């Protein structure tokens, strides 16, 4: 036995299962040194131990430090921070914004009652505190005093109430209606005194603070008199105020000298957002030194950044995922054994390691991502071709079948479709891929007029959420408007109602366990991975605060010497 092997074996005995897996990947060359350190830190492995393992695997300490140089010193005041984001797809209006570029822009000059931080903890922002009464049906938020909008007008509870009544108004064209539908009706947010806003909900909701937080990105607090022309002023209460908006190309901000929170007074003097039309241009922009921060990049589009020594990657666990729906009401997926077999044929390890370069958590066929606090710890579903074939035989489909798989040509979804095609072929199942543009796939986005909602099998992209409420509802409830699986299960509906109403985390966890077990058994939708949120920054930039929702807080960001 050689010396390297002996040292590695010795360290393995002291390491956990996750750490051993990491060692395997490093030795097999599946991950690089930088990735090894990053993953090890997430797993809780100490830096000295990581150094020892790397050294045992033939990587010197100097090499480790050279790959990911430690940042020293505090950000220096002054200067301009330049951030790259995808161009917002339409007019910038807090009521209608629906894409990441738009929401990132909203969050510079605008603020929320509650900030959902990168660990999904609700942090008081324009609300100082909150409490619920009547078992989660009524919520009261204490509004912070001494806060002003950029035009000098003071923030009042009336402004807050008007903001949420506008968002819940069915006639306002509000994108937040999909969050507030069945939760908050127009007129039920009221200023009850000089400092308090009360929300009378349509039904009890234990996670309501998240629905008024930055997770609901349309919910930036606006003046009661807001008339819809946000692009002219970018009005809000945030640490940055508008300097210049260049439609289609970018926006510049300067420090809001009257900002209420001294701890979040901006370090840099200016903040310049640059809009990009696609991910490739963004990557070139960061590498070509046009921007200091790239809000988000994918593994498939930004591989060059992961190996660039001048770029530092911020990696956040997230709940963003792809749903693979199997229509429960038509053949060949009417029998749940067939759906279970499909789930067992998928090689999730290959998806996570290959397709996503390990930057992902495993999915366990429910919306409960590992990142959610309420997710229960139940056994992970693994690939098991033998059992899958037995289930198919029991369902009378031992010879396999042929089915059409619909999706659209975005992100890594076409690659995922091809990998699924290979996986299920082992049981004689043939997937005919129909990959179109997004407009064709979503169609009119209503039942009967949308391949997304009507196809026998389809892959749909879902972004990050801070709590699983929306993901448990629309795609899976019997009357869900995004229920492409046509899954109808009364017990599920009842469990979700209990989960949503629960205020106590232990009760939420207990219901989550039941929901996870039910979905694992029924398998209406395959959730195979929850991919991480990746942000790129130049090495000389520090204290960039991002959330997996797509918010970027540059208030404390600056350059280091």
């Amino acid at each position, binding site marked *: 036995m050689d010396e390297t092997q002996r040292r590695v074996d010795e360290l393995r005995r002291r390491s956990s299962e996750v750490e051993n897996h990491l060692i395997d990947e490093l030795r097999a060359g599946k991950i690089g040194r930088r990735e090894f350190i990053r993953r090890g830190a997430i797993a809780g492995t100490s830096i000295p131990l990581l150094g020892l393992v790397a050294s045992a695997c033939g990587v010197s300490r100097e090499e480790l430090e050279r790959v990911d140089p430690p940042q020293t010193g505090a950000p220096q005041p002054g200067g301009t921070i330049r951030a790259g984001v995808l161009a917002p797809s339409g007019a910038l209006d807090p009521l209608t914004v*629906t894409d990441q570029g738009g929401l990132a822009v909203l969050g510079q000059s605008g603020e929320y009652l509650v900030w959902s931080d990168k660990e999904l903890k609700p942090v008081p922002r324009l609300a100082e505190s909150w409490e619920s009464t009547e078992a989660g049906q009524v919520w009261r938020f204490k509004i912070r005093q001494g806060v002003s909008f950029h035009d000098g007008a003071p923030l009042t509870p009336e402004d807050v109430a008007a903001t949420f009544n506008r968002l819940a108004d*069915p006639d306002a064209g509000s994108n937040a209606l999909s969050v507030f539908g069945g939760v908050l009706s127009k007129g039920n947010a009221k200023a009850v005194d000089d400092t308090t806003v009360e929300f009378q909900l349509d039904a009890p909701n234990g996670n309501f603070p998240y629905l008024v937080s930055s997770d609901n990105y349309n919910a930036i607090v606006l003046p009661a008199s807001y008339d819809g022309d946000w692009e002219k002023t970018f009005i809000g209460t945030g640490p940055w105020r508008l300097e*210049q908006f260049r439609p*289609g190309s*970018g926006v510049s901000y300067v420090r809001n000298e009257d900002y209420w929170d001294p701890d979040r007074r901006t370090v840099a003097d200016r903040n310049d957002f640059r809009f990009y039309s*696609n991910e490739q241009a963004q990557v070139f*922009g960061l590498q070509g030194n046009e921007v200091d921060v790239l809000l988000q990049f994918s593994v498939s589009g930004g591989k060059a950044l992961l190996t660039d020594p001048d770029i530092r990657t911020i990696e956040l666990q997230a709940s963003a995922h792809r749903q693979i729906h199997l229509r429960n009401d038509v053949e060949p997926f009417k029998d749940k054994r067939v759906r279970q077999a499909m789930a067992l044929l998928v090689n999730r390890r290959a998806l996570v390691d290959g397709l996503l370069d390990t930057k992902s958590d495993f999915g366990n066929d429910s919306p409960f991502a590992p990142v959610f606090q309420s997710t229960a710890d139940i056994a992970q579903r693994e690939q098991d071709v033998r059992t899958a074939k037995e289930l198919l035989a029991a369902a009378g489909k031992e010879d396999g079948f042929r089915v059409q798989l619909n999706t659209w040509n975005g992100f890594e979804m076409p690659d995922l479709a091809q990998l699924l095609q290979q996986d299920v072929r082992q049981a004689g199942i043939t997937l005919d891929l129909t990959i179109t543009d997004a407009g064709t796939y979503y169609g*009119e986005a209503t039942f009967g007029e949308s391949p997304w909602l009507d196809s026998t099998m389809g892959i749909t992209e879902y972004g990050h959420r801070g709590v699983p409420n929306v993901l448990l509802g629309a795609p899976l409830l019997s009357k869900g408007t995004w229920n492409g699986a046509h899954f109808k299960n009364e017990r599920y509906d009842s469990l979700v109602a209990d989960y949503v109403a629960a205020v106590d985390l232990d009760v939420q966890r207990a219901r989550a366990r039941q929901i996870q077990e039910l979905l694992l058994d029924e398998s209406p939708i395959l959730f195979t991975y929850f991919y991480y949120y990746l942000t790129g920054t130049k090495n000389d930039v520090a204290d960039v605060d991002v959330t997996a929702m797509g918010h970027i807080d540059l208030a404390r960001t600056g350059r280091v010497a």
Partner: protein
Amino acid sequence: MAGFIGKRLVLSLITLLLLSIIVFVGSQVLPGDVGRNILGPFADQQAVDALNEQLGANESLISQYLDWIGGVLTLDMGDSLAFRRPVQEVLGDALVNSAKLALLAFIIVVPLSIAGGVYAALREGSTRDRLISLGGLSATAVPDFVWAVLLILVFSLVLGILPATATAPPESGFFTQVEYLILPAFCLVFVLFGYIARMARAGTIEALDADYTRTAVIKGLPQRTVVRRHVLRNSLLPTIAVIATQCGYLIGGLLVIETIFNYQGIGQSLFRAAQEKDFPLLQSGVMIVGIVYLVATLLADIAYSVLNPRVRLAQES
């Protein structure tokens, strides 16, 4: 000449009207509606309906078309549904950007390729001729996006001497703007050089072989005078037609180049308008590209008739 131009203008207006109808009918085939496209597939249907109502997208298609065409006649193209700003404003910026890039590419590629083509023709069969002909053809055969990525990798990421994207920072001066446009302009030069140079070369070889050239040489005129007065005048006729047809492409057809270099030109604006089903923006954008095509071909015809007396005389008769 005036009659000829008048006839062409009337034909151009009919062409534009037909174009507007084709785009209008074509845009109705696209799936989804503008409210759904703005709010996304996951938005509540009530919100989508309310937004469509606000934007006027619920009105009948004929009414939307007549509104738009009525506006155009009074030089008002309406508001972009997605951007909620006047179409003139959205397209104006994009048109200026496209024109800057097209002009720079034009200034480089036209003299370069004509000179290259004529030079190759004067040395027909030589190594230099083959170098220009085959080199130009090879450059044209490489797709524009390949050139784009290659140029960015070499000049921006490796050498670090030119910007990786084409949009200059706000308030940039003339030379900074040119610096930002050099790489995309050279992509276009590589794509167009082979085509234009080949036309110039073929025209020159034909003119060199013509009786009038032989007569001029026999008359004892110096070679430079023969080339300038007799050869170029005739050899450039087909080349002018080719250059004119490229003008529309340079203004409205650069989606790939604009996308890779993150440049807000007409190509990207049209693509987004089609994606968003933003009817006023799409329709007006296509009209502008159509007008550029028609004006360019009209100018080419005029230049053609000026250079070729036979055409001019035929028109006058």
